[in-house]
């Protein structure tokens, strides 16, 4: 049977023939806020249990159990806050962008349910600054929710109060790190903070805070509606439910595909995204955003399973799959990713601030035929100071994951094409010497 999507959280936005996401339509055709009505009749602790039972893991990148995260809140410490991470910035991830623009009510409903479950009376949706249309629609959705009694004082007569603020960022990748996000939301540079204490214990304004991704929030109403057991009945092993994968690069049909976890990379990339564009061969693919180590065509029959990805020395991360054809130079891709991290390093930790800059310089000369014979080993050597051992899962000498992420491309070059690249560098070095001699 041909590969198929399993649409749960994308059902409403895909089923529509037009772009009518508004309150009345979402209410009529997607039963928006009916899960909230159900949730308000439950105890907060029951909701935490239901979400834990569902096995839902955070869809932002780290893949931590959502219900488990909620249960880490210290008892009887108030106020508590909910911060929804809508700062989608991991290169090649564009699923949250779609959810925000095309089904904002689902996010708002999931956020209200979550705030109720964790007993927070203030929630924030930290939205990537560049999502201008998204900001407009999300704000309109929030306004509608207030106007219809789903937000504000005494929601639907339950006695529960909640204020929800849509907060726009201003162009910063590291604001997508959960502690970076909290710094930014407090009106600071978005610099990550050391953990512990984890945000669940000491987060926004030093109060217990839950930070959850947009896609995670979008799944919550469905879990409440149909039960944790139903959700846990789909997926594979400990990767349960459906996930949206953003497929891009050299593929025929780039786009977002919501599939049941456990599907193979091949079914996703070839079956749904149409395979490599122009009938070319695949050289390699990146399975989980720019931070994740790369995989080869021989891994195409592996399942979309977060723990299996770890065994393969990588991660499903933010669900961004980038495909590259045989004409693409992996060193060029490694350089571009290094350039990204060098630009986005917040500068707080020396190994990342200095190291990302060096990586970019050395990879630039390697990608442009000006490499020196030992450049790959040089990268591994100073990479060792950012991410000791240059391995996966990564070690780190930095506060946040951006530091070790800078090494993923180099780790991949070394692992997949180490000999080939060293030979190429030796040739480059020889040619450079000849040129220098000729130039006198």
């Amino acid at each position, binding site marked *: 049977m041909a590969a198929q999507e399993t649409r749960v959280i994308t059902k409403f936005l895909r089923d529509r023939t037009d772009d009518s996401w508004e309150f009345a339509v979402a209410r009529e055709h997607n039963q928006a806020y009916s899960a909230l009505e159900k949730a308000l009749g439950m105890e907060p602790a029951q909701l935490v249990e239901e979400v834990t039972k569902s096995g839902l893991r955070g869809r932002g990148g780290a893949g931590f159990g959502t219900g488990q995260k909620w249960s880490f809140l210290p008892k009887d410490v108030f106020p508590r806050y909910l911060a929804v991470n809508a700062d989608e910035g991991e290169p090649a991830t564009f699923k949250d962008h779609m959810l925000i623009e095309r089904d904002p009510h689902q996010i708002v409903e999931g956020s209200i349910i979550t705030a109720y479950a964790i007993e927070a009376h203030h929630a924030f949706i930290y939205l990537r600054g560049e999502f201008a249309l998204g900001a407009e629609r999300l704000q309109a959705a929030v306004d509608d929710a207030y106007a219809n009694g789903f937000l504000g004082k005494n929601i639907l007569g339950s006695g529960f109060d909640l204020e929800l603020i849509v907060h726009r960022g*201003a162009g910063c990748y590291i604001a997508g790190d959960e502690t970076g996000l909290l710094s930014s939301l407090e009106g600071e540079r978005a610099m990550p903070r050391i953990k512990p204490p984890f945000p669940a214990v000491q987060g926004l304004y030093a109060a217990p805070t839950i930070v959850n991704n947009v896609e995670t929030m979008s799944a919550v109403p469905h879990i409440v509606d149909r039960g944790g057991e139903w959700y846990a009945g789909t997926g594979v092993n400990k990767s349960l439910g459906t996930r949206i994968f953003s497929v891009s690069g050299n593929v025929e049909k*780039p786009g977002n595909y919501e599939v049941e976890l456990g599907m193979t990379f091949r079914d996703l990339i070839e079956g749904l995204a149409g395979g490599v564009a122009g009938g070319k061969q695949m050289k390699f693919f990146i399975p989980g955003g720019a931070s994740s180590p790369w995989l080869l065509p021989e891994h195409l029959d592996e399942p979309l399973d977060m723990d299996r990805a770890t065994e393969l020395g990588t991660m499903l991360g933010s669900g961004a799959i980038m495909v590259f054809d045989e004409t693409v130079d992996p060193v060029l891709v490694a350089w571009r990713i290094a350039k990204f991290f060098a630009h986005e390093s917040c500068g707080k930790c020396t190994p990342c601030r200095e190291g990302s800059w060096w990586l970019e310089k050395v990879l630039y000369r390697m990608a442009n035929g000006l490499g020196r014979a030992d450049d790959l080993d040089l990268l591994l050597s100073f990479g060792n100071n950012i991410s000791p051992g240059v391995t996966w899962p990564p070690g780190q000498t930095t506060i946040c994951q951006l530091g070790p992420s800078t090494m993923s491309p180099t780790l991949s070059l070394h692992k997949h094409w180490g000999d080939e690249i060293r030979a190429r560098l030796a040739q480059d070095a020889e040619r450079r010497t000849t040129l220098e001699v000729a130039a006198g």
Partner: protein
Amino acid sequence: MSFTDTERRRAEELIARYPHGKSALLPLLHMAQDRDGYVTQDAMQDIAALLGLTPALVLGACSFYTMFKREPIGRLVVSVCTNVSCLVNGGPALVDSLRARYADDLDVHVEEVECIAACDLAPVMQVNYEFHGPVTSGAAVEVIEQYKSGALTARTISGSPAAASVSGAGTTVRRELAKGG
């Protein structure tokens, strides 16, 4: 330019929404940028006074975020992505051609940006944070020209919904600077 009384009231409303007022810093910087076309020193001082911060702290945050411009850049900011999915779909050539085309145009500021989360539209650009893609360099110029002529309505320089009349403040100041004024 300093905040007028009306603007100050709007700012105070924004601040009051948050449990701690300092959280309003980014929204206030967006507001100031929309008004002046970039974040002026006066605005940073006003914001500092409103939030009880030093101007240096406001500058520190403002200079950290790429969307905030601290000098006039014109009326339209064109952001072209060259991150990996755009890299293999023509992003670098697109940014080069647009930079060359608009080098002397005081209305248009072309910048290379990191992934803007629309890789299915690669190569993708934003004009005042409105997405356009996939675009060839010819199609990109056509879109930008439509914004220039008003055939397409541009958002503000910070991406807010277009005001009744799009502020040309950034271009005006830039023109004066270009004249040495």
